[in-house]
């Protein structure tokens, strides 16, 4: 999947994986296999979010794009039609 919707879908998928892995590792902290999956997914997510923020709009409040001014609080929320995801 490519484009805005595809990129957001990839972010959704990798984030869900990380959400579940976080809970798994809380109870299985010695699982080397899942630790390395977590590390890989973490890097994948950072790259995807960076790409999305640069091309389509802000995702994370600590890292909004500020080159063209401030739009964090005015850009539509993702469930709004105007967000067009």
């Amino acid at each position, binding site marked *: 999947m490519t484009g805005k919707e595809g990129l957001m879908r990839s972010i*959704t998928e990798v984030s869900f994986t990380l959400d579940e892995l976080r809970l798994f590792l809380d109870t299985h902290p010695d699982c080397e296999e899942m630790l390395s999956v977590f590390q890989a997914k973490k890097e994948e997510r950072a790259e995807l979010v960076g790409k999305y923020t640069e091309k389509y709009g802000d995702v994370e409040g600590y890292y909004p794009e500020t080159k063209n001014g401030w739009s964090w609080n005015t850009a539509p929320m993702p469930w709004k039609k105007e967000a067009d995801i």
Partner: protein
Amino acid sequence: MWEYEKRLQYPVKIKRPDAKAAKIIISQYGGPDGELGASLRYLSQRFAMPDDRVAGLLTDIGTEVLFCAL
């Protein structure tokens, strides 16, 4: 402490607005047995948990359940 992101945990696209269905869905989020109440119970119980590792887990579960309420 939380921060939010401008994205949804699961994509939502409303094609046909349905107020009756919306009323049911919102009570699952904010109603008496909803996600919001559940998340706040996890997050207040974490303070009474003597085992630090489980207290940390409860913080993470409460946070995850809160995602589902927003």
